[in-house]
């Protein structure tokens, strides 16, 4: 117990908390993100309807406006979409899908990126130049482009039905696999800085193997840049997922993410039912802005170049 309170005390006195308390934007954006994350996590409890349950749908309820507009039904807080689904419930579930895909994709790219970055930075030489060459090439093709092309082919290979069932896994794989160079490069550059230090020499002298030195000694000292870039990468992954779903290559209409909801609504923009598109769009933008602002804050704290100012 004493140990726990010691760590707690140390955390409270850390630079991160020090700067966090003085940064209003960081406090607000992290709170907003926390609220969204909780809403997404507990969406089955909060949502008044189950958007995946087809028996609850009634076409008579379709395209109802949000409650503050005349002609609304008080049961549907933010109105309904074209199939009569409650938009508020669908957004809650959609946020869950978007966040889940974003976070899992970043976990995947983080794992690949950390391993490749560590190996590349620590080994150096031929291995390093080959891996970084591949990373360069992969980076020069935009993720969105690669993802669109791969998904287009996967969709045609599997057929629409199977594709819809596996959409979430496929999206995580595609976004995760195509973004690893971002993290690998970051890890590599900090490994290059760390591996010259004395503690690595000491570990060598003690006879530890390269794997142990890489993961137990060097990696813990490279965590802060990984932390910063992962935050921004979550925002990017969410945007990419939304874009793919918007194009009809992502989550199916029956299990919509925020992107597919926006896509459903775009047809109805002209008939005046703007809420089907613009309300999910608002939620998407709010999540991404909150994450990006958190990323900006972390970058400022962890970037030692800025201490001078």
């Amino acid at each position: 117990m004493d140990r726990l309170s010691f760590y707690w005390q140390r955390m409270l006195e850390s630079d991160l908390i020090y700067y966090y308390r003085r940064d209003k934007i960081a406090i607000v954006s992290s709170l907003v993100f926390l609220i969204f994350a909780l809403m997404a996590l507990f969406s089955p409890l909060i949502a008044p309807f189950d958007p995946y349950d087809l028996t609850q749908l009634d076409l008579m309820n379709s395209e109802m406006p949000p409650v503050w507009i005349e002609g609304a039904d008080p049961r549907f807080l933010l109105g309904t979409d074209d199939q009569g689904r409650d938009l508020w419930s669908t957004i809650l579930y959609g946020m869950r899908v978007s966040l889940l895909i974003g976070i899992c994709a970043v976990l995947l790219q983080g794992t690949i990126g950390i391993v490749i970055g560590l190996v590349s930075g620590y080994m150096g030489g031929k291995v390093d130049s080959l891996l970084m060459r591949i990373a360069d090439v992969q980076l020069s093709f935009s993720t969105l482009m690669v993802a669109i092309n791969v998904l287009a082919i996967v969709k045609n290979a599997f057929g629409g039905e199977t594709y819809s069932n596996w959409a979430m896994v496929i999206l995580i794989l595609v976004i995760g696999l195509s973004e690893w160079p971002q993290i690998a490069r970051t890890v590599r550059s900090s490994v290059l800085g760390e591996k010259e230090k004395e503690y690595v020499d000491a570990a060598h002298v003690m006879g530890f193997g390269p794997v142990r030195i890489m993961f137990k000694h060097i990696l813990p000292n490279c965590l802060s840049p990984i932390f910063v870039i992962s935050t921004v990468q979550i925002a990017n992954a969410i945007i990419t997922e939304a874009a793919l779903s918007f194009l009809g290559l992502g989550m199916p209409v029956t299990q919509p993410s925020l992107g597919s909801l926006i896509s459903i609504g775009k047809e109805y923009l002209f008939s005046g039912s703007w809420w089907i598109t613009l309300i999910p769009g608002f939620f998407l933008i709010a999540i991404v802005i909150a994450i990006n602002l958190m990323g900006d804050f972390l970058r400022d704290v962890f970037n030692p170049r800025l201490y001078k100012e």
Partner: protein
Amino acid sequence: MFQFLIKRTLQAFVVMFIISIFCFLVQDSLGDPTRELAAMSMSNADRADLRESLGLNDPLLVQYGRFAGRALQGDLGNSYFFKEPALTVIMKKLPATLELVFAASFLIIFVSIPLGVFTAIRPRHWFSRFTMAVSVIGISIPVFLTALGLIFIFSVTLGWMPSFGRGEVVHIWGYWSSNFFSWDGFLHIIMPAIALSSIMVPLFIRLVRAEMLEVLSSEYVKFARAKGLGSVPVYLKHALKNTMLPVITVGGVQIGIMVAYTILTESVFQWPGMGFMFLEAVNRSDIPLITAYIMFVGLVFVVVNTLVDMLYGMINPMVDLVGKG
């Protein structure tokens, strides 16, 4: 120098080779040409004969050789839907996409460079703070939402702007169709161009600002100041020139990346370009057109990136060419 050029060119070929293998495998496993050629009533034996005569039973390597050979001559197969060579279809759609990219690049250059320079020179001015705040928001808004928002405000609510298509185009030299020579065409390109540039403008403002800040704190700018030069010549002649180098290289790569975003923009505005064509091809399972598009766009990427890299290597004397290549 020469060694660097060779190495870069070789790398470009390797990448193109990998893309072509990928496209070949896709076409081989998904695109069955007999489906297109054979009649419904054709028996299985006839079908097998047809496969044999088309060389579909040859070893994979031989088939790839044929595929690559044809691709090098510009034959990327025939589109199922358009009943035309895929490359011809792409070339017909190319002007629409290029004009969109051009209009968006124009906006990016003339919006982000002045704003970036201003925010670097006067970091504490209210307008700089406002610009930076807007740029964080701008980075967070996906292209398709900007596009839909523009349509909602200017087409649906206000009714000022056309919301889809290219409008009236003027044909030049019988081939190139342009939006810039008629008022109607010009009106049609405004919103797609703004939407397409919306993701890049904040990025470039930040880039120009960061580079400019770095240059402004360097010794030679301080020296130019100490020499008694006025601030305008120092900013524009000494500082901006050196800011442009990284901006141009990043810009070159980003313009390649914009091709990906044209798919999103074109699908919202139903702009009849390559991206819109590609999405339609995906929905129609038009495999030859899909692979042709991937090969074509892959080539554009590889060529642009290689040129930008070479240009950078040549302009910037600090780059260790051989070590880097």
